[in-house]
């Protein structure tokens, strides 16, 4: 090996050394920027996690946990309420229809009573004529004629009043029946759609609340993931220091080779020996450089992976917890408003039915009164019949016409009794029909609403909790958005640092080729250098600076021609060994 060629190799190696030094400085600067960006991101991540932790604690509170069962109970109560209302309305419609029918029968009976009243009046007139015709002998019939006249007058008035009232009530109830018959299908449809809507809203709210209840678990796994990623970055950034030392050791190795080459005195045997261990030394440095390159690739990819994981927090579902709580509060509020509206509608409906039944009860009083009067009229007619028959019998053949009148009164009395019995029957039926209607109405107005009211009250309490959590969430969400925004702004900085690290990686390739080129140049005249160098001498010269386990393994691999030892990427870092 000539002095000139040794100088040429040394010059290449000196250049490689300079480049390595410059590269180490660049890498250090870049890793410093990455670490600074990481600290910023970690700070914002911490802010987001702290805000989320408070929010998760609020979501996990007893008050919020009760929302879901309360909403479920409210949905059930509302559904039950609607079903009960529909059932009651159907029952009331059936009852009203029966009442209309019975009132029609009563109306007919009243008309027949009116006919009897007219007949009674005619009999009264006939009795008066007969009394006049009999003269002094008919004096005892005068009182009977008077009673008949008074009775027919009262009867006529009562019957007219009842007929008028019955017709009016029948018309009113008929009107309600028609209104109910028309409204019921529509109401059934409306209520069915409300139930469907409620189920839909409850389904959405339930799904949302279930989703919300999962957030604490998701938050904890996110925290774990972040902890791992942060540890990963911390470990990777520290690895740069290890790399820096490795680069320094390669520089030292190159210096040793250069010194050896320059110190050779030109004797062939000595040149051969120097060249062989220098080639071996350069092989070691090439291996070390490859390992450095591999390490840089490993920790820069670890930094990228971990930083990406940290950055993802700003767009993750964790940041979405705040808006999600707000959304759920709105959904449940909407559901409650829907139920309030349904109850309002039902209340109006109940009032209208109660009004109808109120009218029916006044009709009942009227009919009952009329029935009492009819019975009294029946007794009166019977009495008149007996009196007229007794008086006519007493007068004998002279009072045939009076006897005929008495027979008429008897007939009318029988007719009256029959009609009164019919009216009483209709009345009894009416009472029987009206009874369940009253029960329907009672159910309608009290019991059915009670469970709904309780569910509504409980939901309002839960909703209040949800609302206060939602307000808290809104504030937290705002802070989270700010932190996320700042995190996103820093992303650009992280990317630039990552690109520069990649550029460093490419520069290693160049340096490795230069050292490789120096070794080829050096070994060109000494093809058998691999067989000639003294392994112990080489190890003695180069191993002093290789104080880490990995460097020593690389050295051994280089000397034995084995592949590079594998470095496993670790996010964890090493533990402390206490003495």
């Amino acid at each position, binding site marked *: 090996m000539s002095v000139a060629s040794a100088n040429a190799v040394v010059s290449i190696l000196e250049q490689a050394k300079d480049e390595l030094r410059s590269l180490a400085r660049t890498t250090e600067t870049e890793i410093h920027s990455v670490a600074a960006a990481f600290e910023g991101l970690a700070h914002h991540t911490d802010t987001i996690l702290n805000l989320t932790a408070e929010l998760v604690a609020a979501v996990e509170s007893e008050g919020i946990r009760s929302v879901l069962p309360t909403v479920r109970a409210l949905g059930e109560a509302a559904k039950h309420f609607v079903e009960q209302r529909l059932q009651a309305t159907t029952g009331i419609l059936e009852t009203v229809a029966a009442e209309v029918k019975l009132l029609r029968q009563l109306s007919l009976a009243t008309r027949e009573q009116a006919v009897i009243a007219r007949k009674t009046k005619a009999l009264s007139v006939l009795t008066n004529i007969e009394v006049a015709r009999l003269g002094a002998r008919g004096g005892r019939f005068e009182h009977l004629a008077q009673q008949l006249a008074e009775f027919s007058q009262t009867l006529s008035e009562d019957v007219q009043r009842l007929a008028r009232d019955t017709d009016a009530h029948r018309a009113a109830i008929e009107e309600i029946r028609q209104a109910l018959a028309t409204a019921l299908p529509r109401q059934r449809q409306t209520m069915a759609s409300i139930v469907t809507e409620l189920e839909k809203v409850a389904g959405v709210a339930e799904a949302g609340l279930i989703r919300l209840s999962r957030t604490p678990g998701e938050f904890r796994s996110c925290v774990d993931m972040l902890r791992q990623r942060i540890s990963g970055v911390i470990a990777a950034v520290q690895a740069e220091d290890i790399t820096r030392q490795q680069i320094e050791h390669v520089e030292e190795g190159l210096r040793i080779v250069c010194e050896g080459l320059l110190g050779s005195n030109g004797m062939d045997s000595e040149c051969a020996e120097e060249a062989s261990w220098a080639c071996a030394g350069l092989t070691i440095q090439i291996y070390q450089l490859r390992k450095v390159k591999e390490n840089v690739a490993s920790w820069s990819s670890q930094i990228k992976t971990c930083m990406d994981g940290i950055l993802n927090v700003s767009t993750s579902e964790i940041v979405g917890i705040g808006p999600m709580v707000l959304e759920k509060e709105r959904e449940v509020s909407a559901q409650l408003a829907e139920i309030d509206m349904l109850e309002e509608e039902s209340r109006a409906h109940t009032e209208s039915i109660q009004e109808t039944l109120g009218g029916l009860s006044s009709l009942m009083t009227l009919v009952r009164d009329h029935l009492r009067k009819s019975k009294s009229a029946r007794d009166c007619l019977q009495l008149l019949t007996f009196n007229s028959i007794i008086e006519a019998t007493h007068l004998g053949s002279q009072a045939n016409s009076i006897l005929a009148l008495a027979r008429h009164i008897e007939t009318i009395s029988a007719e009256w009794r029959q009609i009164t019995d019919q009216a009483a029957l209709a009345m009894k039926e009416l009472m029987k029909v009206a009874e369940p209607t009253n029960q329907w109405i009672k159910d309608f107005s009290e019991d059915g609403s009670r469970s709904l009211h309780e569910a509504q009250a409980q939901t309002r309490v839960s909703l209040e909790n949800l609302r206060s959590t939602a307000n808290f969430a809104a504030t937290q969400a705002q802070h989270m958005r700010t932190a996320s925004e700042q995190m996103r702004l820093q992303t650009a900085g992280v990317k630039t640092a990552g690109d520069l690290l990649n550029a460093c990686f490419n520069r290693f390739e160049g340096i490795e080729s230069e050292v490789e080129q120096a070794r080829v140049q050096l070994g060109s005249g000494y093809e058998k250098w691999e067989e000639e160098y003294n392994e112990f001498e080489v190890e003695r010269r180069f191993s002093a600076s290789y104080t*880490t386990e990995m460097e020593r393994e690389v050295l051994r691999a280089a000397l034995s021609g084995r592949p590079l030892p594998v470095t496993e990427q670790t996010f964890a*870092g090493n533990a402390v060994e206490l*003495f």
Partner: protein
Amino acid sequence: MAKILTVDDSNSIRQMLGFTLRKAGYEVVEAVDGKDGLAKAGHGKFDLIITDLNMPQMDGIQLIAAVRKMSGYSFVPILMLTTESQAEKKDAGKKAGATGWIVKPFNEEQLITVIQKLVK
């Protein structure tokens, strides 16, 4: 709040140590090498010291030996944070007065757990 002195010529290591310790609630003072570390230890009272081994001007072993001679530092825990894993180096550290040894990179969670035990 406990006060910790970190001594390392590597900017990135000091940065990561500072970040980890401050996040855990400790006050941190940084020194760039053994000489700087010794000066800072002399100017203030620290509850724990974490030092690198290979540093310019004064290495970690020399620093520990010097610090142990200073008043008030006989029982202050000193952890060595280094890339070295050789037994003889560890022995040298132990003899100089180190409390524990950590091979870089450190595990932040484990480091904090140990510090919490050492600094009470």
